[in-house]
């Protein structure tokens, strides 16, 4: 074995050790600890009153394991226990966010959140809940409560009371939990890119176009508009998959990191107007806080202080610190054990109060004066539609679009045109909605007097979604309005009028 290989092996070991065990003040994890629970509370608070229905044996729990043909995993709690757990989860998340008994809070939150989401795969568990479970677990292993937390405040105050009175500097810890969060996020993107590679329709814009038209999330008017530009969708899709694949490899480069994260923020933020997603982008953007390391934070703080000092109107920071000090409670800071007892007391009291409040609310209306709710009769119109045979599926239902354009990108029209010039080649494209049978489509070109000028047909087999025809209106033809008519089985199923100049 030569010296260079020994050296390189040793340097690799040193690099790995430094990568995981470098000591830093956990600014990034602390920011994530503050933010992530608040995002999760946004989804959990509205579900609290439905806890009995969503997560318990006294409701309609929807365990994920049923989809895997594995009933009974995990066991379903009683209604009261589900409400108690949901309440405790909310308290634990609040407590984690403010950093009060941070580690137990995060462990409780992680356990309860994972357990409850596993019980409702229909309306609570999604990939953002899974990502959140991972991050809560990794945060609980970190020292994220050592700064900007009640724990840190209590420790600092008790130290200043008992010792010298000199405030302690934040302590540095091995960075490995933060590294695991960073690696986890990068591998999520890599895995998501694998999914896209397995999905042919992702690269042809079809899958994303239909997603943009889907109405299962919140309103997405910008997405509906974007679905008219499949070439833009293809370009964005290709950019996104490249970004997701390279993320894990280049996020560690200091200069590239912020570019990658800025693209990520834009990518996730755009899913709100485009796809109607609210919580997923918040979870992912919060997760980026794990990429904030000590050096970054100190640099930003340095810039902020410099900016602050250059402001024409300056606040006296020593007076501000004195004011903060004056506003702090004057009571004796409880010892760690006493703080724990108070925390447990609050957790138990809140949980019991939650159970009592939910029982008082009577979500199923069982204790109403008039008794339980009667069943609602089915809307007669809907009942009739359910019970009668389906009308045949119209061909126009299977046709997504019929349009004209000058150029193609990735097999779709780059732009749509309403006017073309004589002698200028242009494309006509019909897009089908899957699933469809093998079909023969005819495209006719008619002049303004509805005279047939040209007719051409094409088979669209079941595995293809598009038929394209290239046209070129000769210069001898007069300018005016021409029509392109799409026919199926001899019947016109779509028509597009174009101006020819």
């Amino acid at each position: 074995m030569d010296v260079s290989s020994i050296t390189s092996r040793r340097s690799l070991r040193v690099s790995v050790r430094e990568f995981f065990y470098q000591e830093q003040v956990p600014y990034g994890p602390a920011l994530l600890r503050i933010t992530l629970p608040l995002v999760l509370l946004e989804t959990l608070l509205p579900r609290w009153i439905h806890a009995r229905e969503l997560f318990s044996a006294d409701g309609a729990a929807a365990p994920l394991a049923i989809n895997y043909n594995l009933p009974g995993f995990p066991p379903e709690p009683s209604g009261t226990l589900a409400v108690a757990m949901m309440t405790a989860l909310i308290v634990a998340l609040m407590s984690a966010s403010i950093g009060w008994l941070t580690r137990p809070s995060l462990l409780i939150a992680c356990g309860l959140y994972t357990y409850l989401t596993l019980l409702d795969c229909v309306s609570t568990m999604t990939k953002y809940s899974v990502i959140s479970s991972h991050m809560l677990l990794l945060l609980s292993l970190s020292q994220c409560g050592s700064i900007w937390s009640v724990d840190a405040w209590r420790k600092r105050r008790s130290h200043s009371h008992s010792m010298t009175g000199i405030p302690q500097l934040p302590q540095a810890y091995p960075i490995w939990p933060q590294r695991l969060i960073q690696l986890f996020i990068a591998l999520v993107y890599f895995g998501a890119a694998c999914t896209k590679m397995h999905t042919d329709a992702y690269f042809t814009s079809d899958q994303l176009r239909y997603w943009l038209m889907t109405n299962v999330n919140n309103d997405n008017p910008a997405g509906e508009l974007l679905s008219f530009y499949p070439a833009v969708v293809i370009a964005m899709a290709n950019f996104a998959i490249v970004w997701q694949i390279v993320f894990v490899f280049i996020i560690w480069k200091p200069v590239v990191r912020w570019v990658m994260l800025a693209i990520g923020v834009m990518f996730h933020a755009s899913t709100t107007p485009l796809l109607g997603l609210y919580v997923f982008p918040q979870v992912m953007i919060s997760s980026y806080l794990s990429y904030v390391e000590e050096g970054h934070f100190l640099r930003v703080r340095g810039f902020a202080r410099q900016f602050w000092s250059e402001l024409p109107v300056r606040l006296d920071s020593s007076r501000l610190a004195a004011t903060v000090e004056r506003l702090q409670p004057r009571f004796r800071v409880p010892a760690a054990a006493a703080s724990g007892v108070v925390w447990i007391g609050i957790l138990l009291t809140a949980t019991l109060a939650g159970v009592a409040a939910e029982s008082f609310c009577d979500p199923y209306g069982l204790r109403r004066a008039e008794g339980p709710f009667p069943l609602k009769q089915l809307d007669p119109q809907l009942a009739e539609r359910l019970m009668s045979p389906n009308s045949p599926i119209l061909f126009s239902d299977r046709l997504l679009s019929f349009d004209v354009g000058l150029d193609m990108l990735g097999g779709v029209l780059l732009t749509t045109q309403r006017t073309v010039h004589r002698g200028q080649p242009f494309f006509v494209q019909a897009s089908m909605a899957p699933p469809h049978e093998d079909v023969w489509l005819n495209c006719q070109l008619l002049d303004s007097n509805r005279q047939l000028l040209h007719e051409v047909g094409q088979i669209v087999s079941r595995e293809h979604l598009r038929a394209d025809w290239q046209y070129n209106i000769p210069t001898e033809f007069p300018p005016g309005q021409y029509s392109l008519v799409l026919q199926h089985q001899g019947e016109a199923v779509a028509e597009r009028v174009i101006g020819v100049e």
Partner: protein
Amino acid sequence: MKRCLSNGFIVAYLSVLLFGVVTHALQYHAHRHPLTYYIVWDMFCGWSAWEQRTHIVGEGESGTLYELAPGPWGEYHPYGDIPRQHYDPFFNHAVRQGINVLKHTRHEPISRILVYEEVWPKKCNLPEPLRQRLCPVPQDPASQFQLRWVCDGEGTVQQRYVSWFDIQAQQAVSNNPRLQREVTPSKQQVILASGMQGQNSAAELRSAN
């Protein structure tokens, strides 16, 4: 000791994550256990050209049909403006939702619980001017319905049917005279006993109602 534990955790955690990514990339047992959902990142899959909804219906002994989801105590909208029952694309949890409503309401004896799938082209979700821009054909949104589950009043499965999408995909392939000659009639039409899968047509299912 502390370093050993953290080393062990790092190795174990990264191994589990990599296992998920590799099984998913190779499509090998990627969905074997519910916990693989925690390590397989298959977002964005399964979006179709048709919007899907769920109708859970109770048939009383008098023949009256009742709405079993959402419950009469109010709708719960988890992600947007549609109730919870519509977020179950595999219809694995619909009957349970119906049973829960029956358990907590006043009603006549219920003889059957029926679960229907409703689909319509997603382009019908677009506002009319946009839809006309996409494909200039006058069109009323026409839903298709497909019976998926038939249970007795206690929720015991009597019949289970394949999805509208599977039927359409099957028809797209089988609409071929040569193939039709090769497929025996007994294989073309199978009405299923509980817990089994097969294919049949919507019209046949309706005649079974």
